[in-house]
């Protein structure tokens, strides 16, 4: 059986942009180590990445991608596209094939058009319209699937993502405590953060 990666992260692509949503819980063997962890990361002004899995692995991958994106920008004179960043991440993940990063990743962005890609721990790369990662993914994905329309306004996609994350938080012990959003449009990335309990700051 495949190891279940803790956490829940959602990516939804619509015709007007991409929505990322993720909860904020960090668990360690049944203990909640933190209630305020970020699992969604902007990489450039128009491309972001989200992870479910081990926090150490996702922070490492974030630092590598951030550096690679900067290097790409210096070499090419423009921002890296989501497709290129996803391909690069796929190669990085595959290079750890024998001792893999315990993460699933979603890469999304708005360059020429909205785009969304999903990667498994060893880097298989799939293009999707919507996706959910982590231990709460099955609960979340069933909600997203029911409400998804390609032409839905971004605000509606955000509410759908919120509904799906809350459903995962409700029944998945490894997810909880708050919700993060990244809303990616042609104009750039907007970030929002919500805490669920008073003691979770």
């Amino acid at each position: 059986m495949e190891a279940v990666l803790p956490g829940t992260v959602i990516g939804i692509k619509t015709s007007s942009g991409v929505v990322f949503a993720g909860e904020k819980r960090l668990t360690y063997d049944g203990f909640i180590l933190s209630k305020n962890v970020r699992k969604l990361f902007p990489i450039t002004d128009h491309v972001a990445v989200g992870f479910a899995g081990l926090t150490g692995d996702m922070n490492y991958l974030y630092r590598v991608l951030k550096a690679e994106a900067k290097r790409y920008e210096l070499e090419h004179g423009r921002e890296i596209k989501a497709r290129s960043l996803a391909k690069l991440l796929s190669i990085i993940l595959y290079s750890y094939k024998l001792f893999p990063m315990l993460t699933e990743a979603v890469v999304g962005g708005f360059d020429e058009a909205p785009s969304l890609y999903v990667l498994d721990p060893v880097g298989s790369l799939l293009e999707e319209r919507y996706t959910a990662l982590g231990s709460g993914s099955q609960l979340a994905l069933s909600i997203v699937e029911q409400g998804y329309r390609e032409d839905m306004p971004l605000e509606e996609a955000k509410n759908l993502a919120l509904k799906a994350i809350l459903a995962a938080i409700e029944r998945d012990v490894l997810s909880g405590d708050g919700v993060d959003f990244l809303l990616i449009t042609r104009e750039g990335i907007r970030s929002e953060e919500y805490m669920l309990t008073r003691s979770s700051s």
Partner: protein
Amino acid sequence: MSFGLSAAAYDRAITIFSPDGRIYQVEYAFESVRRGWTTLGLKSKKAAMVVVEKKKISPLVDENQIQKIFKIDDHIGSSFAGIASDGRVLIEYARQEALLHRLYYDEPAPVEYLVKRVCDVKQAYTQHAGVRPFGVAVIFAGVDDQGTQLYMTEPSGRYLSYYAVAVGEKANVVSEFMEKNYRYDMDVKETIKLGIQAIASVIEGKPSSELIEAGYVDVDSKKFVIMSRSEIDSVLQELAKEGKIKL
């Protein structure tokens, strides 16, 4: 050494500057380029191309098999003047870099990116001990998301972007021709014709597709194609009909 006493010792190792700041071995490498087969690159709004003059080496050489225009990737072609083996090695390197770019980023390499990689190698060979500089000028013609691109790389590792550039034996004549006849707003056909006319006009004797090789890439297809003998022949025929060349 044919220099005076003061200059004599400064070309024994390439890593040594002469007192006036020159590196003789790098300058000699330019001499290899100057003696090379005439090679022209040009770009217009709609297309970029490279054209070369092929010379008769010996009646026993199968000249049909000599290749002077090289496809680097779908969207980039190139040619060079100078030491052919040096050129071949750099072409191989450029191809590898172009493939790696596709592998890492899932998109074609920008032309300047590739030119920069090749010039990094050229530069290293003007500085490291125990090596000699590359005796070639490589011309890259391609199309990327910035439009048509044309670069010429020098043995020193310097590169510049051009509208039209000629290297090799008759570079001066071809450059003069381009200065007189070049326009940026040419269409694909006009670009190809001008390029072939320029090289045809420096060929000693009768120009023919046996003595000319050409390749081009246009902004719509973004595919570099090496022209066939018959394609070049028909362009030559057209040019002859218009009285621009004599066949």
